[in-house]
């Protein structure tokens, strides 16, 4: 009882402070293209959304998917094909990518949720590798070349996306939509059941929840949002290649989330920003990126498993506890 009231009392304070922070963040994002290179910002936004989608699964259901590249890269292929070969308008091309990723999520999720924990990770990895092999062989992906020269086109037939600023604000809008969707899912009754499954699956079953359906639902949503990120990336960068479907990409999104903080809403965004910035920085130097990514993985797992944002949250929580 006491814990409950304390929790309720804390809520409004938390809400106003996070709303202020959110408003500042959105203002910063709106102003950002005047200070930074828009292409890099758009890359961060796409990967941040991808990492948030991945985090929905690991952070709130406790399922580590090692195959999220399949949804990200798969959607990129679908969107690129629709925009280039069929000449679709960009938004509907992206939506086709989302639908494709959701359908793939339904199939892969249906197989993968039959096992938990470590097996789930291995199964998703194997199934996404299978998808990568298929992408290498079917003609529409153009094998090693990928789909190049995807037109950005006119959004809804009106807005010319070849202008960098227009493209940036559309990407930002898509990112904010995706982030808001995840925020809504996490804070809905559905999201609470997901967290209950994460904490104690057997108890959730004994309470009468059909755990498998909730897991599959979360998996499909996560896949669809990863697809939203992938489809947008295909329009922004105007290509879709095998890189996006391969296991290294699944590893990268895990790293972004782990580095930022698994199970925190903004952790994956911080992680994505850091990893992209680091990759850009290293691209000019001779140092092998793979080695650095591996080193960050090892350091994160050994020293701060909560991630950057997670550790900060934990620190402030402890501080406020000792103050009270």
């Amino acid at each position, binding site marked *: 009882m006491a814990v409950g009231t304390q929790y309720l009392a804390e809520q409004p304070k938390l809400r106003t402070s996070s709303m202020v922070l959110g408003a500042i963040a959105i203002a910063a994002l709106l102003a950002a293209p005047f200070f930074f290179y828009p292409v890099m910002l758009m890359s961060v936004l796409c990967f941040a959304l991808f990492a948030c989608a991945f985090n929905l699964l690991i952070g709130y259901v406790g399922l580590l998917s090692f195959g999220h590249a399949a949804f990200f890269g798969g959607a990129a292929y679908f969107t690129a094909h629709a925009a280039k070969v069929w000449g679709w308008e960009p938004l509907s091309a992206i939506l086709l990518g989302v639908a494709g990723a959701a359908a793939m999520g339904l199939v892969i999720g249906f197989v993968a949720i039959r096992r938990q924990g*470590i097996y789930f990770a291995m199964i998703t990895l194997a199934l996404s590798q299978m998808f990568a092999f298929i992408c290498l062989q079917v003609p529409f992906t153009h094998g090693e070349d990928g789909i190049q020269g995807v037109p950005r086109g006119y959004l809804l037939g009106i807005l010319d996306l070849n202008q960098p600023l227009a493209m940036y604000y559309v990407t930002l809008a898509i990112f904010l939509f995706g982030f808001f969707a995840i925020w809504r899912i996490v804070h809905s009754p559905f999201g609470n059941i997901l967290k209950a499954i994460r904490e104690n699956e057997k108890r959730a079953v004994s309470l009468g929840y059909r755990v498998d359906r909730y897991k599959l639902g979360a998996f499909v949503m996560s896949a669809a949002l990863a697809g939203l990120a992938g489809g947008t990336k295909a329009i922004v960068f105007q290509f879709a290649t095998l890189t996006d479907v391969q*296991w290294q990409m699944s590893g990268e999104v895990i790293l972004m989330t782990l580095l930022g903080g698994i199970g925190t809403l903004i952790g994956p965004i911080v992680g994505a920003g850091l990893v992209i910035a680091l990759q850009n920085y290293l691209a000019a130097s001779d140092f092998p990126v793979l080695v650095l990514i591996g080193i960050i993985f090892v350091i994160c*797992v050994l020293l701060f498993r909560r991630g950057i944002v997670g550790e900060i949250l934990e620190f402030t929580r402890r501080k406020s506890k000792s103050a009270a």
Partner: protein
Amino acid sequence: MSTIFGVPAPALYGQILIGLINGSFYAMLSLGLAVIFGLLRVINFAHGAQYMLGAFAAYLILNYAGIGYWPALILAPLIVGAIAVVIERFMLSRLYGIDPLYGLLLTFGLALILEGAFRYWFGAAGQPYAAPSQLTGAVNLGFMFMPIYRGWVVIASLVVCLGTWLLIEKTQLGAYLRAATENATLVQAFGVNVPLLLTLTYGLGAALAAFAGVLAAPIYQVSPLMGSNLIIIVFAVVVVGGMGSILGAIVTGYMLGVLEGLTKVFYPEASSIVIFVIMAIVLLVRPAGLFGQEE
């Protein structure tokens, strides 16, 4: 020329042999994964990298110290096993008792470091490694010509798999190991040094992978990418077999290798995905795997 199901017999036998060889590597690697997982509850993502490291160890000691294939077959596993012991002592051992996913992520990071470093030094292209002179040439089996080295790989892997199985099922050390898998605390209370057992097990698993790497060096080229290409398939093999049983891991490895070879004959387009398809089917029909028990 004789045909079987409309396929020339020599082509069929040839693909079955290649399947057996691939299966040998699947079996050795999934065996190591199963041994490590059984005791440490860690999925060793670095297994592929340790396999690659074994092949490179053989390549490096040949080119810089002039040490040939036969000593490398012993030395490379020892070197890689020693590295693995250090990794277990200083990194993996800190993760026991927490969510096993962190062990997977740690070894994934290690795999990336190893693969990235070797790509940086040697490039993505493969380095050739010659088979020893005693094992070159081919032998006529009556129905087909078999390169001697390939026959040697199948036999050597069978011996290693059987040896590991005997070590675990029939020796005192293996009995400790199996007991610690069941209940580590109790075994420790009886005076067995369980932390040492964990370290040795990880070292043994990595040494097995390195041995497979040396065997593979003359067949496939020694390349930094050889491990990551293989490890994902081996994960699928492990899911199909179920990680509960050592013998299960071995049998599944050979079986899927041969099946993959047969697919190359009858429907080559599907040969790269057939193992994953089988994994999906097994999961739908028998989620615990062919030899596994529901946990």
